[in-house]
């Protein structure tokens, strides 16, 4: 199987904290997988994610993107091949929905017609009727609709890899469930690799082909959801996936960030 991402002994420490945010992580992620990174706030999951598109640089170790060390690639070019979605969405408020989605295709110099077609296709993909939405501005949309646009924008230039940092963390439970469904639909249709950070255990297990459980910057277990449930490797994972904990996490209000 083709490898989308390889982490080799990746370590990152922020000067102000004095401990490793990510400590000696070595994992491989296959092309076409949905991997969710699960952990509590401050476990290093967002740090791990942001090293992939070089928003952070690791202190040691290396990351390979389809076999190429990302430190040898131009970060700007690398990022254009990677879709990036964050909890706060970050749509450009002064641009219409269509212009937002067209951002990366435009940078890549696609011709006008191809961009227009792609924007149309992306809006349909995330179930926002183009006739109604393409000319609107972000602030006219609900939180859930904005994140749909966020997804459409990230995937518009057909990136090989999607990085999602708690994308549905600030969205109400019902809308979140719909969006999770859409995400799986998108994944089935395009077969891209998804790396999805969440602190919602239910979400992590529902979406993932494999779940990466992290604590204190270290990988605790990296396996399929069923294997983690049936075979937790240590006390931390056992605690995390125990039904009581599951219940508790589901009931706790979302929105905290690592």
């Amino acid at each position, binding site marked *: 199987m083709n490898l989308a991402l390889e982490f080799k002994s990746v370590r990152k420490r922020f000067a102000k904290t004095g401990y490793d945010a990510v400590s000696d992580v070595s994992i491989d992620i296959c092309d076409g997988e949905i991997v969710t990174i699960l952990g509590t706030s401050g476990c290093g999951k967002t740090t791990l994610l942001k090293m992939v*598109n070089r*928003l952070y640089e690791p202190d040691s170790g290396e990351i390979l993107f389809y076999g190429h060390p990302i430190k040898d690639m131009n970060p*700007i*070019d*690398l*990022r*254009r091949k*990677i879709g*990036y979605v*964050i909890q*706060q*969405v*970050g*749509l*450009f*408020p*002064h*641009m219409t929905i269509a212009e937002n989605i067209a*951002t*990366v295709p435009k*940078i890549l110099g696609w011709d006008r017609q191809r961009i227009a077609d792609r924007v149309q296709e992306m809006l349909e993909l995330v179930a926002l009727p183009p006739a109604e939405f393409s000319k*609107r*501005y972000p*602030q*006219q949309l609900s939180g859930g609709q904005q994140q749909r646009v*966020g997804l459409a*924008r*990230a995937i518009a230039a057909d990136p090989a890899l999607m*990085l999602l940092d708690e994308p549905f963390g600030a969205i109400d439970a019902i809308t979140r469930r719909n969006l999770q469904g859409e995400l799986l639909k998108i994944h089935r249709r395009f077969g891209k690799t998804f790396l999805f950070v969440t602190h919602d255990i239910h979400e992590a297990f529902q979406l993932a082909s494999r779940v990466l459980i992290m604590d204190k910057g270290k990988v605790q277990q990296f396996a399929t959801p069923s294997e983690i449930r049936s075979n937790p490797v240590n006390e931390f994972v056992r605690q995390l996936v125990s039904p009581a904990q599951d219940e508790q996490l589901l009931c706790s209000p979302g929105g905290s960030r690592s």
Partner: protein
Amino acid sequence: MYETILLYLHQNASNYMVLVLQHLRISGLSVGFAILIGVSLGIYSANSSRLYNTFSGFFGLLRVVPSLAILVVCIPVFGVGVVPATIALTVLAIPPVMINTALGLRGVPDSVIETAVGMGMDSCLIFLKIKLPLAMPLIITGIRTAAVEVIASATLASYIGAGGLGDIIFTGLGLYRMDLLVLGGISVAALSLLTDLVLSSLEFSVTRYQRS
């Protein structure tokens, strides 16, 4: 009084227009320079609180000095006429432009910048396509404030021989002619209002996305 004003305008139409144009030219030049300097300093200081405080403190201090005083202080250095007037008015106009530019750029949400970087926009694109357009409404507000202040203060430029509508007012004062005082005052007020109107409609057009 209306008759005397109309009579004066009728007899001195071309002279009046010359004064209006002089007034607009001094004001326009000063605001133009203030935009160049103020926007540059604003951009330069947007990322550093220390620079921002230094610049805004410095110009804030200069601003406390009355325009007339700056004009008079300029005379020994730059002589009389348009040059010292323009310098004094530029100094007056820089702070609102600079402060609003810096505030506008600082006000761009982190999440917007983060996704822009994450999508592979380089810093030049982010500045031109994201930061500057989002800061533009505040920058224009700053320019509005500056322009209205400059047009009002440009009246004083006449005092050091730079011409403009101040000439009518100072003549009115000297000859004790109420009609000239009123005409000069109203003309300056009208210019200020007109400029404010033009700039606020410009501001309106760049903030359409906030309302629709």
